[in-house]
Structure formats: C-alpha cells, structure tokens
C-alpha cells in the first residue's frame, strides 16, 4: 500500500485554481522531491495531504486513512515541517519539545525531550529560547520536533531555505537515514542538487503536475538536446544564438554556453556555422535537470495572467 495515494486533487481560492487535478502516489520508504516555481501549488498540495486544507475535488488516502474524513488520524501519524519556522520563539528548545511531546501523548515527557535533545546535540542549550537560534539550528529543531512522535510520513515544505550547505548536507543525510528505517518523505525544494538526492521527483507548475519519475526519467522524457559552446566573447554569441530558430535556451555555465532545444535537427542547423569561427568549439553535452525545469517553466502558461 502506498503511503500517499491521491487522485484528481483540486483546490481553488476564489476563482483561482491553485491545485489542478494532481494525482500522486508515493510508496513507503520513498523520498519524493516536489519541485516547481514559486506559487505553483506545492505548499497547498502538502497542506491538503496533512489535513490542513480540504480539497474541493479529488480523493485519496494518506497512510491508508481517508483524506476527507480521517484528518485527525492523519495528523497523528504525519510529521509536517512548515516552510516558515512555526514553533514558539518565546519558548526554550526544551519547552517546545515538551509541548510537542505532551500534545502527542508521548510518555514520559522528560525522557522523550532528553533523548531528542541528545540526538540533536542541543542538550547544553536546552534552556535557550528558540527564537535566538540561527536558521540552521531552527531547521534542525523543527525537524526533530516533527519526528518526535515517530510519524510514518514526513511532509517537508522547503525545509532548507536559507540554510548553509553544510547544514543542508547533514539534513539530507538525516532524511536518508530516516527513510532507510521505513519513513516516507515528501519534500518540496528549489535546489537541483536536493532534487537529485531524492528517489523520485514530481514537477508541478501552476497547479498542474507536469512530470514525475526518477531524475534520469524526467530528463530523458523531456527529450531535450544540449550542446556546449566554448570560445571567446560568449556574451555576444549568446545574444546572437537566442535569435536563431531551434534554440530554446541559452545559458552560460562557467566558460561555456549551454544551448538547449527540443528539435535536434533544428538545433544542429542553428549551430552549424559556428564550427568555422575562431576558437569556437561545439560539442554535444548532457542535459541537466535545471535545463529541463527551465524548459518546463518557459512552456507552462501562468494562470495568474
């Protein structure tokens, strides 16, 4: 049985459809990355799954519980980490954890708090106000509080926004450790390197799910061709290339240009005359996940317009 199994979810705010016919399956123990531009409906979808929002249409189960009628059971077994730090800044670290432990009826409260503090490495700072923690520590505290009651499904909404690379690395190591123990994780992110650490990814744009699968699947299914162009005066070259038919994206990466298109023949033709120029070399490159996402964003219509 899938941890998440939802069909045709629709959520409207006023006359704006924020989530449009989203269908998603996530197997137990899987880490699924949820990607998409700002305002694409990621947070709304996650909120529907943890019972914070009721869908206007669609149905499904989360951890085997009905999405519409068994919200309270879902809440007990799901850990939800909000995008913004939403524990009490005027409570100490230990008090926040004790609050969560009591709400989930974890006994004895003291032992749960002590164990969590030890896992976090925050025992010595237990009496520090949560509001005085740095971004990285807040995020670790929030994660620890979310998994305290040993949920079966973890929903993380952009958990690493504003967190330094080392803390991000540690965070993802922790996620993988938890998943190895059977925890299912759905995590939304903007970072490509994080997407690549997921078992599978789903890409949502303006409420509609556009692609889903492993990173390799998504890149392959996008059917994009990428050429690398090296040489002098790349900025002028980039401007020139953008005008040509068949070229859909031109982006500088270090000392070379990524030139991306979906029609290989047209792209080849567009680049043909570059070969003879001074110092310019053209070679076939790997399409990256980012190239694919930029393509998705360029193609999808913004329903806010």
């Amino acid at each position, binding site marked *: 049985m899938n941890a998440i199994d939802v069909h045709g979810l629709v959520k409207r705010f006023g006359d704006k459809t924020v989530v449009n016919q989203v269908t998603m399956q996530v197997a137990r123990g899987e880490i699924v990355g949820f990607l998409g531009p700002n305002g694409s409906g990621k947070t709304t979808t996650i*909120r529907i799954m*943890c*019972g*914070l*929002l*009721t869908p206007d249409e669609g149905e499904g189960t989360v951890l085997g519980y009905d999405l519409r009628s068994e*919200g*309270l059971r879902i*809440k*007990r077994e*799901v850990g*939800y980490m*909000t995008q*913004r*730090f*939403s*524990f*009490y*800044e*005027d*409570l100490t670290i230990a*008090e926040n954890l*004790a*609050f*969560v*432990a*009591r*709400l*989930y*009826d974890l006994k004895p409260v003291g032992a749960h708090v002590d164990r969590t503090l030890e896992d976090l490495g925050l025992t010595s700072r237990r009496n520090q106000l949560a509001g005085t923690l740095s971004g990285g520590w807040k995020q670790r505290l929030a994660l620890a509080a979310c998994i305290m009651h040993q949920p079966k499904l973890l929903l993380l909404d952009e958990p690493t926004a504003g967190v330094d690379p080392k803390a991000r690395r540690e965070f993802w190591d922790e996620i993988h450790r938890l998943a190895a123990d059977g925890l299912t994780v759905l995590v939304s992110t903007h970072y490509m390197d994080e997407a690549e650490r997921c078992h599978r990814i789903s890409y949502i744009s303006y409420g509609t799910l556009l692609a889903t699968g492993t990173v390799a699947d998504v890149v392959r299914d996008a059917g994009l061709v990428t050429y690398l162009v090296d040489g002098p005066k790349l900025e002028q070259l980039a401007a020139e290339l953008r005008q040509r038919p068949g070229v859909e994206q031109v982006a500088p990466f270090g000392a070379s240009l990524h030139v991306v298109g979906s029609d290989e023949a047209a792209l080849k033709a567009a680049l043909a005359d570059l070969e003879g120029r001074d110092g310019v070399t053209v070679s076939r490159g790997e399409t990256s996940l980012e190239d694919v996402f930029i393509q998705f964003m360029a193609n999808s219509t913004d329903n806010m317009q």
Partner: protein
Amino acid sequence: MNRIFSLGRLMALLIKEFIQMRRDRITFGMMLGVPLMQLVLFGYAINSDPKALPAALVSLSQDHYSRAMVSALENTDYYRFDHVVGSAEEAEHLMASGEVVFVVTIPSDFARRVDRGQRPQILIEADATDPSVASGAISTLGTVAAEALLRERGVPASEAKPADRLEVIVHRRYNPEGLSQYNIVPGLLGVILQMTMVMMTSIALTRERERGTMENLLAMPASPLEIMLGKVLPYLVVGAVQVAVILGAAKLLFGVPFVGSLWLLLVAVLIFVLSLVLLGYTISTVARTQMQAMQLTFFFFLPSLLLSGFMFPFRGMPEWAQWLGEIFPLTHFLRVIRAVMLKGADLPAIAFETGILVLFIFIYAGFALLRFRRTLD
C-alpha cells in the same frame, strides 16, 4: 484515542500558555499592575461630588452681609473663591476660560434689601458643561446662605418671616443623578476585568496566526475544544488574581462596605470572568490580525462602558438603549456585584442576573467553536 478531549493535550496547551505569559514580562506586569493602578487612580480620581471648586465672587457692595454670605459659602467646602472681581464682564471671562466653575454675584442693593426685608437676591451661575460638577454645590447653597443671613441679622431661624427669605437664583441646565465612590469601586472591578480579560484573549488566536505558529498547532492533534480551553483557562487564573487584588484594595483603601457573602461574590465574578475570556476568544476567531482584534475589542468596550450603567444611570436611558445595554455581560455583572457588595443580596436575589451571565458563556463558547476552523481553508 479521544478525539474531542484529552487532559494530556490540554495540559500541553496550558503549560505552553503559562510559560509564554510569564516570559512576556510587560504584558504579565500589566495584567497584575494595571488593575491595581486603575483602581487606585479611578477610585480616588472619579468623584461625582467634587468639592473646593474654583469660584469667582462679583461683589458690588462691601457690607457685612455680603462678607457673611461669602464665608458661609466657603464653609460648605464646595466653593473656593479664587477671584474677587468688580464687574460682571470680568466674571464672564473667567468662566468662559474655564478658570472658575461658579460665579456668585451679590448685587449692590443686597444689604439695603436685607435691612428693608425685601427678599434679597443672589445669583449663582454654574458652568454646566459637565453637569455633574455643580450639582452638590448648588444643592447645599440655598439653606446655607439663608441660615448665614439670618444669623448675621441675629434673627432666630424659627422667627424668620417669608419676606426674610433669601432668594437664590440658579442658572444651570442640568441636574444629574449623583454617583458615590461606593458605587464606583464595585463597578470598577467589572470594568477593569472586562478591559484586561477581553483584550488579552482577543489576540489569543490571531497572535498564533500572525506568528505562523497556528499552522503547526493545527497540524498537530489538538481539538478545537482543547485549543479553546488551553487559551482561555490561563486567563481565568489571571482574572482570579486581579479580583483578589481589586477586592482587597476596595476594602483597604476605600473602605467599601461588604455586606453580602464573599463566596457568592466570588462565584459570580468567576462566571463573569469566564464569559469575558470566552468573548475575547470569540473575537479572536473572527479577527484576522491582532490589529483587527484590538479594534473589535474597543468597538465592544465603549458601548458596554456607557450603556451598562457604570457611567450613567441605566434607568435614565431610553428603553431601546436599555435593551441594547442588556446584551453586555458587564450590565448584568454590575447589578450582581452592587447587589451583593452593597445590599447584601443572597443567591435567589441574584440568580436571574447570574443565569444570564451563564447563558453568555454558552453562547460565546458555542459561537467560538463553530467559528473555529480546524483547517486553513
């Protein structure tokens, strides 16, 4: 797993709320200090029977009768003659500028008329912009002045003829019902409780919403009933402390008589406070921001203050206003507390008004639970 109510979850919310309350030093200090401060301030400051009011004397004759009149008026303690002026225009100016509240004019023919037995007159002009200011001073005036005059002439009061009577002409436009300090202090208990309790609880949920903690709270297994009680009960404790402080001060500082049963009073106060915190909580389920909550609270305060009978006599209002006044818990509480503290009323005597307060509790709690959204929809 109990879905509606679990003591453990309620404890979680209560402990959290108490810690937050303790940590917010300014608010905490305000909750305890402000009631005491307000009681002392208003208890001493609000006086509907003011004395030693500044007055101007327009004395056009300098005879011994006039001097006797003036000293008699000063002896009442109501008048303090700061100014002695020679013309009506000067006096007019003093009153217009607010420097004096009264102008007492003793006409030039005063002594002559006294001696001839021609009903002497004096004129009292009172500043009636605040009508309650002058009422006490004016009501004592007639007898005091007449007695002084008779004494000065050496005529015993029993032999005074109608023609000897002093005619006091009073120019004023209002004669309000007076309020005594005994009346004010019990009322202040109600007003102060209403102020702090409703204000504190009206931001209960909006604060969580604005700080972003609401999303987390809703994602965790806490029921609407638990959240409501978790928010409201800590303030019931604060209210209890306030009541103890105010009642103690009422007794020690103002010597307000306490004729009724203390227990009956405490039960009534508890019911009143519970209705207030639930009202505040109801506001917080409606308001989207703390600012809105404050605005709603004040929108509620002023009419309840003015129409409850705290500031103005309830029976003096037109009938429709009295009906409006009935919808405020404060109105009913004032009747209960004045009855218990001042008249020594027993339970049957206040049962009806207390019953209405209980009704408010159920109405507010029911409305708040209906309004409360378990989701962010």
